[in-house]
């Protein structure tokens, strides 16, 4: 369905998958907050108008309605932008979705700085961290269209709430359709021995690019796609760092609270080694082209590479 290397916004894959699921399972219902055309949930709405509810620009209401619907036995998908689901409706997610542990799948577009031109108000760069601290939440960001499809399907079989973050703009397809995905299990994309790069979402393909360049410079990096940051796949991290002894985390998110933080917490308690975190450094980004923003905010392929060099250097110093 999706060709390797094609640039596809993961929100598109989400919309397509919803329709596919809707055909198989009539218990799936979808709620939208007036941006169905953009989140791609409208595709589902077109085919299943009776199971599609547009709540209007009212995300808190949307979330609590979804909770009520889920309590009647439905598998409920909620679509809106990441900023609005995680922050506008933050408390509703916590109190009415997570605390009662109902089957609501919050699938949100415009994650990270991928809505590049729209500017800060529409770039969710704190959401993964916020969702991660809510007990009972499962937090996911797929790296490409293929994994989006697989993880959205897996979400329907998962018991309990899920927050799944999508990109607005295109990201390259990196998986072929044989790869199997499990919620909570990271994917070892490339093997290596000198350093572990743990990446999530749109940054996974950047990590792969960095690895290619690094290998020419004599550093073999292991690359892990940590599509689920909660629950964190601890064993894949441990297995890898026992070999490499150093970690660089890469995320389209604030370096505080997100993937880098989750990995730091885990390794701090279990296997203290040098870690470098790549992401937004306690600042809001701005409007502009995606690649230029990555550069300006030190999240580009070059920055991943220099992060790797730093950690490798510190490893040596330690010895």
């Amino acid at each position, binding site marked *: 369905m999706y060709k390797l290397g094609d640039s596809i916004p993961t929100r598109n894959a989400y919309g397509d998958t919803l329709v596919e699921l809707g055909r198989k399972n009539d218990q799936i219902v979808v709620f939208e907050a007036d941006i169905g055309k953009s989140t791609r949930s409208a595709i589902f709405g077109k085919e299943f108008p009776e199971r599609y509810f547009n709540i209007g*620009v*009212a995300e808190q209401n949307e979330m609590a309605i979804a909770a009520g619907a889920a309590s009647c036995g439905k598998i409920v998908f909620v679509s809106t932008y990441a900023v609005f689901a995680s922050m506008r409706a933050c408390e509703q997610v916590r109190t009415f979705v997570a605390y009662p542990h109902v089957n609501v799948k919050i699938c949100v577009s415009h994650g990270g700085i991928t809505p590049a*031109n*729209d*500017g800060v*108000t529409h770039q969710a760069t704190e959401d993964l961290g916020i969702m991660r601290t809510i007990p009972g939440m499962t937090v996911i960001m797929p790296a490409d269209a293929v994994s989006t499809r697989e993880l959205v399907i897996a979400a329907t079989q998962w018991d309990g709430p899920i927050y799944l973050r999508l990109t607005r703009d295109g990201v390259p397809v990196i998986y072929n359709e044989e790869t199997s995905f499990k919620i909570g299990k990271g994917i070892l994309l490339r093997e290596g021995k000198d350093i572990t790069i743990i990446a999530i979402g749109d940054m996974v393909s950047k990590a792969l690019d960095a690895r290619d360049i690094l290998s020419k410079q004599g550093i073999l990096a292991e690359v892990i796609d940590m599509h689920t940051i909660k629950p964190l796949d601890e064993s894949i991290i441990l297995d890898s760092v026992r070999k490499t002894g150093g970690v660089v985390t890469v995320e389209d998110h604030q370096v505080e609270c997100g993937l880098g933080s989750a990995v730091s917490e885990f390794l701090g308690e279990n296997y203290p080694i040098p870690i470098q975190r790549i992401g937004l450094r306690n600042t809001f980004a701005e*409007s502009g*082209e995606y690649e230029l923003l990555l550069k*300006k905010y030190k999240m580009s392929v070059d920055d991943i590479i220099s992060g790797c060099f730093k950690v490798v250097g510190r490893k040596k110093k330690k010895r």
Partner: protein
Amino acid sequence: MIDKTKELERWAQLLRYDVVRMISNAGSGHPGGCLSAADIITCLYFKEMNIRPEEPDWPDRDRFILSKGHACPVLYAALARRGVFPVKKLKTLRKAGSFLQGHPEIHTSGIDMTSGCLGQGLSVGAGMAVAAKIDRKFYRTYVMLGCGEMNEGQVWESVMCASHFKLDNLLAIVDYNRLQFDGSVDEVLSPGSMVKRWKGFNWNVIEIDGHNINEILPAFEKARNTKEVPTVIIANTIKGKGVSFMENDYLWHSLMDRDKLAEKCKQMKKDMENADSFYAKRLW
């Protein structure tokens, strides 16, 4: 000497051109809601509001909050045309490093508050109006809301609180173009009778044609003379007003076809050049 109405209409037309030019240049943005608001914004910035373009932070200035922040190109155009910053800066909309962000940001000269996440502007405006009352200052606060925004609960929270605090120095304007992102407001989440709702929350309500300058200006005046209660102007407008293929088409909420818009832009420019020397010297 041309009359005031005619002059304002010209400025409004120029702002429409700026909007079309800026968005086709940026390659993304929200033209529909800019064009529906152009006449009101013109009346605010070229007549009603007390501001100092050379001193945008003047403490006694009137404040304006574009709660429907995605329509910021029209606001940027008004600020540039009033001389707050050079018109040539409009070219940089949505580009990295530009102070003209995709949604308004308080650090931009002339922007009184960050917005873009719908439904928050009226709360902010109420805060400003209260601050004026505490300080016994006479500046007024204007907030423009989109009709889709009225879905947001926070709007009703602020509607309630503004009448509770008797904020007669606050004016809300609803750009009632009846279309939102996913379709018509009636389809998405019907606002029922807009007038009845605001009245139910104890506001002074004035309904006007939001493209008729001879209705807009008197409404502002009436609002200024109303004491003890806040006023809302329900301005009936047309989304995409002034560009035939955009009018009343909800798909043009955001940029649908860049080439078509660029084409239109060229044509507008040509028409305006020929029409009047007022425009000719101001085009870019």
